[in-house]
């Protein structure tokens, strides 16, 4: 390479990046000035068709987690990573659409803590608001770390300068109004990412000699691996089940149980059904039927996303010189954060196979995804901080302007804090391990409390907060015990175990505490608990008149059948 930067971009690449940001900021400006009725139409709540909200739903999630984390996982572990999509996402998305969405859409809550407040009152609300705010700051740090990695790869600056610059870029994106047309941007972003990752996958496969060439090379690399290599055997990398490499269990049976219960049930249901960064997209649709279809329509592209993020990771591990060395137990220099880590799989593959032009498209897609992801974390933090914490517990009854000022300060504060939480994320060489750990701490107990509170009207306010606190503490305890070396599980096994423990502890304690404390009166639970919500509040009267392909249940059935077929095929 001619220069000392990781990626050698030229004017053509920067032009493509600039065009994308021109579009995004242009839409933001138009949206704020409302130059057109149709923009108002698209932005006013509850007017969008289901395909738009469905794509925005997927796109809100197609950020750092998906692109860098999954390609890193693909490079390190191979095909078992597909479980994150086929076991760890699609079933939960279908469940969200079929069972839970009617409660969200009907009760019009705008955040998780708000739901907690209405169902359980102050205790659970406070616990949840604090843990949600902390989680958003930590996840914003992950997005920022990856964004800074790209800045560093492009410009060659030291990592801390890149972090500050990336933070400043996100802050200006938020203040220039890039978020006011979030759904427009997310749908655009989806197409840009697919348009850049699909060619990357195809060219990468072309270089290694197609799918057969890829499997041959993985087998050969595994057979010739040095003793320092901790890569799993080729047979485990090339079959999705039983996935010991992912779960860290030696026994195939335990591994399947770990994946299905830990990842497939607790972690993924916890993530998808309580994550309002995504659920809010569905709330913008034009009817309860469209809101229910939002995650279900999103499930179809979601099934095929792994082919354009995991496969490039696997290609990278057998094609890029640094990645081959890393997987063989070496520690090559020159990655986005200093030494090469699995997180660099995608960037290094881009460097090696994309010509200038396509390279710019790929950079635009990655920058867009991480920036939007971090902006979403920060704005979620901002809402919870200014309305759920500051207004409710610290300074009541001030003017709207006062809370807006607090919100702006919170935005700046959160960005600065994210620069520090990014340091934690940089300490993990596979960012997916870190993220799953966080989800185990925060989402698994939340899901347990949600699901129990939604279907068991006896559950009491005290049980609400006790379960959440105990669940989170037990997940942290499991993680720290593992970190102290008391027991060992490779891959994401510790995160799966911590999440499962948190879920079980939360459920058991909630039931025990509920039996000895006083429940809320039934009339306050309408719209919040299944048995207290009349059927007409949960369904769309027009649903039955739609053709079958526009109804919720048949669509969900097709998605489920497709994902089962995919599981058997790989």
């Amino acid at each position, binding site marked *: 390479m001619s220069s000392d930067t990781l990626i050698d971009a030229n004017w053509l690449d920067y032009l493509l990046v600039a*065009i994308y940001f021109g579009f995004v900021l242009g839409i933001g400006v138009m949206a704020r000035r409302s130059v057109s009725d149709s923009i108002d139409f698209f932005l006013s709540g509850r007017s969008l068709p289901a395909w738009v909200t469905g794509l925005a739903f997927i796109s809100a999630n197609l950020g750092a987690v998906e692109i860098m984390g999954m390609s890193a996982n693909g490079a390190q572990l191979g095909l078992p990573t597909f479980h994150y999509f086929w076991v760890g996402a699609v079933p939960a998305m279908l469940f969200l659409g079929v069972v839970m969405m009617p409660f969200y859409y009907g009760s019009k809550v705008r955040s998780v803590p708000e739901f907690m407040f209405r169902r359980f009152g102050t205790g659970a609300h406070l616990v949840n608001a604090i843990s949600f705010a902390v989680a958003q700051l930590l996840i914003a740090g992950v997005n920022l770390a990856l964004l800074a990695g790209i800045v560093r790869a492009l410009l060659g600056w030291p990592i801390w300068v890149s972090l500050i610059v990336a933070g400043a870029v996100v802050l200006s994106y938020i203040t220039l109004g890039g978020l006011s047309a979030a759904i427009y941007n997310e749908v655009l972003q989806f197409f840009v990412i697919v348009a850049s990752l699909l060619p990357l996958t195809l*060219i990468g496969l072309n270089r290694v000699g197609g799918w057969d060439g890829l499997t041959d090379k993985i087998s050969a690399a595994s057979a010739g691996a040095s003793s320092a290599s901790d890569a799993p055997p080729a047979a485990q990398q090339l079959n999705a089940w039983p996935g010991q490499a992912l779960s860290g269990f030696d026994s195939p049976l335990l591994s399947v149980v770990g994946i299905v219960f830990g990842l497939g049930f607790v972690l993924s249901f916890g993530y998808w059904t309580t994550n309002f960064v995504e659920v809010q997209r569905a709330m913008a649709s034009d009817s309860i039927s469209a809101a229910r279809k939002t995650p279900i329509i999103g499930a179809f592209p979601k099934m095929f996303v792994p082919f354009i993020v995991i496969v490039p990771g696997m290609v990278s591990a057998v094609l890029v010189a640094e990645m081959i060395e890393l997987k063989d137990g070496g520690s090559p220099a020159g990655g986005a954060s200093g030494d090469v880590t699995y997180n660099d799989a995608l960037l290094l593959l881009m460097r090696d196979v994309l010509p200038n032009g*396509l390279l710019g498209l790929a950079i635009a897609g990655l920058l867009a995804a991480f920036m939007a992801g971090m902006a979403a974390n920060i704005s979620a933090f901002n809402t919870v901080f200014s309305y759920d914490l500051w207004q409710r517990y610290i300074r009541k009854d001030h003017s709207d302007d006062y809370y*807006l000022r607090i919100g702006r300060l919170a935005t700046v504060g959160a960005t600065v804090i994210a620069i520090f939480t990014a340091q934690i994320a940089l300490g993990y060489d596979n960012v997916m391990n870190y993220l799953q750990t966080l989800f185990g701490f925060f989402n698994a107990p939340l899901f347990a409390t949600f699901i129990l509170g939604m279907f068991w009207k006896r559950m009491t306010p005290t049980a609400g907060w006790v379960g959440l606190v105990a669940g989170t503490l037990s997940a942290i305890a499991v993680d720290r015990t593992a970190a102290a070396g008391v027991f060992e599980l490779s891959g994401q096994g510790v995160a799966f175990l911590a999440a499962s423990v948190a879920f079980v502890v939360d459920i058991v304690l909630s039931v025990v505490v509920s039996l000895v404390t006083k429940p809320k009166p039934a009339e306050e639970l309408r719209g919040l608990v299944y048995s207290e919500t009349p059927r007409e509040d949960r369904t769309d009267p027009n649903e039955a008149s739609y053709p079958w392909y526009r109804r919720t249940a048949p669509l969900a059935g097709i998605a489920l059948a497709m994902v089962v077929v995919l599981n058997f095929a790989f």
Partner: protein
Amino acid sequence: MSTTSETDGRSKKAGLFDIRNIIGALMALYGVILALAGLLGEHEPEKTGGVNANLWTGLALLVVGLGFFAWARLRPIVVPPDVDRADDDPTRPAPQRKRPPAH
């Protein structure tokens, strides 16, 4: 789509700001630039394994972009005559816009 039937005198089509036209414009613009880069620029076959990746991706994006334009033309979204001004989403810290009093 929920917006096909009723077309009274005052409602109008979403036109330029239909999200499909915006997607179409971006994809088509990228398509043209990449196709031109593929035709005129260096081809870098050693990276791609011999395929002119810019050209083919550009052509594909052009087709996708035109497809979105065609979809928006064939099934236009009709904006109802009296659209509520978009409410500020309190979860978003973008510059705020006050909702006008209800009419």
